[in-house]
Structures are given as C-alpha cells and as structure tokens.
C-alpha cells in the first residue's frame, strides 16, 4: 500500500488543571519549606507513612499524629533513567530511587544525584541497594517535592 493510503493526521490535546492538595499534603509541603520531612503515624497499626496519609490504607482509620522522620535512609531500589518521553520533568539521565527514611515504614520515591551520572558503569559502582543516602535541600523553596533537591550517598 502507498503512504497516501496510510494517511496520518497530527493531533494534540492540552488541558490545564488546578489540583487541591488537601490539609495533610499541604502541611507536608509547608514542612518541606522548613527542611523537615514529616510522616503520619497510624494509632492502630503504628506504621509511619511518607508520603503522609489522611487515613491508614490498611486500617482505614484517620491518621492524626504527625512524626518527623530522618533525612537519611537506605536505598531499597533504584533505576537509572536514560529514556526521554513527552513532558518529562527531570532532565535525563537521572536516578529514581525508593528510599526507606529512618523512622518510617514505607519507601519514599525521589532521585539520587550529586554524583557524576554521565557514565553508567561508574554510577553502577557508586550506587548500591542497601546504601545510605541523605537529603540535600534546594536553596529556594517552592512548596513542592523538589524542595528536597535530591538524595546523595552518605560518604
């Protein structure tokens, strides 16, 4: 079949949104501005979750108690991302990681940086599962997740 029979028409849909954060997440991001990472503790199962939840997903109870967790934790898993796609927020290459912050009971998703990311073989030697990392703060705070600029390996 000729190309003309497989005619492709370009299209795009763009829609702006205004998203309500809610009280719990609003407080979390306010605390990030003060360089504190806050979790919520369930009075029933005693788990501390970061991101904080307004209710415990397992107990279905309101989570009322705020607990400050450590800015250091253990790398539970990570991925080296060198794959571009539309509207990607971070510049590639970057490392996404699941970090268990000390004093919390869930993995926290953020990025590991502060090291040379250009050569993957070097990154592989530098970043290992089970390693300890610590939060590095952005100087200018915007009240979003990138107020923590990244996590860096603890020397």
């Amino acid at each position, binding site marked *: *079949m000729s190309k003309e*029979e*497989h005619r*492709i028409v370009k*299209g*795009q*849909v763009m829609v702006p*949104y205004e*998203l309500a*954060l809610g009280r719990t*997440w609003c407080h979390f*991001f306010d605390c990030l501005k003060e360089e504190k990472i806050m979790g919520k503790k369930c009075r029933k199962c005693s788990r501390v*979750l970061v*991101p904080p939840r307004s209710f415990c*997903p397992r107990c279905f109870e309101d989570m009322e108690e705020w607990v400050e967790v450590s800015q250091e934790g253990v790398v*539970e*898993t*990570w*991925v*080296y*991302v*060198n*794959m571009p*796609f*539309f*509207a*990607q*927020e*971070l510049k590639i290459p*970057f490392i*996404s*990681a*699941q970090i268990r912050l000390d004093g919390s009971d*869930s*993995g*926290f*998703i*953020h*990025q590991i940086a502060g090291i040379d990311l250009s050569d*993957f073989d070097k990154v*592989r030697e530098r970043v290992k*599962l*089970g390693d300890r990392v610590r939060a590095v703060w952005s100087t200018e705070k915007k009240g*979003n*997740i*990138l107020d923590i600029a990244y996590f860096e390996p603890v020397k």
Partner: protein
Amino acid sequence: MGKAVAIIGTGQTKHGRRSDVCYPDLVRESVTTALQDAGITLKDIDGVVLGTMPSMMEGVSSTHFYFAEAMGALNKPVMKVETCGSTGQSIGHCGYYWVASGMADIVLVVGSEKMSEGDGQATMTTVFDPFFQRTFAAGAPGVFTMQSMEWMYRFNIPEDKGREAAAMISVSNHDNAMDNPHAHIRVRVTMDEVKNARIITYPVRLLDVCPASDGACAVIFASEEKAKKICKKPAWIKGLGFRGEEFFYGESDKAIWMSATEAAKEAYKQAGIRNPLKELDVAEIYNPFTYQEMIFYECLGLCPRGEAPDYVLKGTFKKGGQLPCCPSGGTLCSNPIGATGLIRLAEAALQVTGKAGARQVGGAKLALSHAMGGVDQFNGVTIVGSKL
C-alpha cells in the same frame, strides 16, 4: 462462583503498527472475527464490555462512545472498565460476572489499544500521583526495573544469573511468537543479542521489553445453556481472582507482591487447584518485561520465592517444559495494552479447546491467564478448562 460461564468465541487482530486502519475499524476487526468464531450474530449479544488504557493514550475520551458502532453496541447496554495493564483481565471478569449473575446469556467483551498513535510512557506517567511521585516516574520501564532490582537483591540472586535467565525468557518468547500469526514482533533473537541489546533502564535492555502495539481482542462469554447449544468446544471459566494494593509505590512490598499472590490463590481456590505447576497445562502470564515474568512465576506459586531463575534455566517454562508459559510469544512480543490481558485469556481459551494452531500445547486441558496493571498495583488471574 455464580452460574457456569463459558467462552464460546475469540477474535484477535493482527497486532503491530496498524496505521492502515483508524481505531474504530481496528476494534471492529476483532469483533467480527469473534462473532464468526462463535458462529453467532450481533442479535445474540445481550451486552458489551469495553476496556482500554487511560484516554491520554490515543487522545480520545471515553472510547466506548467512539467504538459503540464498531462493537455492535447499538440498543444494548455498554460498560467500560479500565485498570491499566490489567484491563483485559478486568473486562473478562466483568463479562463473566454479567453472565454468571444470570442477567445476560451472551456478553461481548472487547479490549483495544492503538499505541502507535500516542506517547505510551507519557500516558503511563500520568497514572502516578501529581504531587509526590510523578516527577520521578519513568513510565513502565522505570517501575518494573525498580521492582526487578529489589527482587534480585531481596533473594540474593546474582546479577549474572538474573541476566542469563531473563535472556532465556526473551529468546523463548520470541521463538514462540514465530508460531503466532497475530504477534507483533516475529523475529528470532539469540542469547548474545538480548544480553548486548541497548540499555533501556539498567539492567533492562531493549529485547527485555515489550513493543508498543496496536491491536484489539474480542471474547464472547455465554451461559451454560447457550454454550452447550451453540458451541462444540467451549472453554469453561474455572476460577478467577483480582486483587489490588496501595497506590503509592514503595508502600507495599513489590518483591513479594501481595496482589499477584492473592489473586492467584483466589483463582486456584475456585478452580480447586492445589499444585499449579503440576495441574496447569499451560499459562499465559502478562510479561511486558523478562525480569518481571520471573517475579510472576513466584507470585503465581509456580516455584518457590527467589528460585524462578533456577526454574527458567532448567527449562521448566519453555515449550516442551513442565509448564509451557506464553506459547503465543506473550506480552513481550505484542502489547496493545487495553487488549493484552484479554489476549492472555483468549489464548488460554484457544489452548484448552485445541484451537491454538501452531502454538498449541498438546492435550492442554487447564490453562491460566493473567495480567497486571497500574504502578504495580493490580493483578488479575482467570483459569479456563476444557471441562465444565
């Protein structure tokens, strides 16, 4: 379980880059084939279930509107269900529920996707929450790679061993796809080619990853009475399970993966299966990534935790092995996502009715189908058998 339900017909498109047809025509292709396979007409259909990925995939919202005519749904009840990758299993379950409840005799279930028309990874990234995790998301490869790394670390699986087993999975799926006329990717690959392919998200390489496909699948569910009247060899639904877990990635343990484990347990309980490795004849497991297929072997109870690479290396799941997995070439060789989980079910039905052509596993009587969806959040399993 409700009333007995059977699959009496299936239809699949040729999957791949289908820029030769517009999206509704692609859907109709699968519907027409399924009706012919069942030997019935639209008049016999009481209701229609449809599922796809989120609307952002092709940029058209609520596609059950767009496809109403293509699905033959005029003057019939229509429902849409979507659970990302597990959509195909979810809609299959809905078809089952509808007939098992006694409220319908024959239900048409359709899954479809036309991934060449959009940006799959950008779409999947919108499944993440907008405040905490989306910034760091890298579509499906990012999540599945994190999960695979965690799994290998948890069970002390050496990197080389994981790599070797994953490469074998890629080679055998590609070999199997050669027998499947519907498959998107039909090329043989070697162990060396897989192990040296371009890195996507380390340790996952290009040949460890499924393609983005266009394709549709239709499956027709019928009550016992209708099935016995219409169909010579129905595939009977023996058991099904569907489970979900927490939305935020990192809140549940993905190396053990409760939703996959419990969905399978529920399906086995309903089907009366105690030793799935022994009792099942064939399995169609959702395997968009080679490494993840090994996690599924463990969650579905086909081998002990941490031992999937050993089972793969000794050929347990290969063609001719103890339990052949994905004789169709699986998700690894065709992934029109909204259709994929239903394709697994259709393939399982073809196997237990002896209609799988060159990919037939000889004498298959009991087959498992499975799919996973979201940010590793949902898992669905359906078991079909040749006997009621």
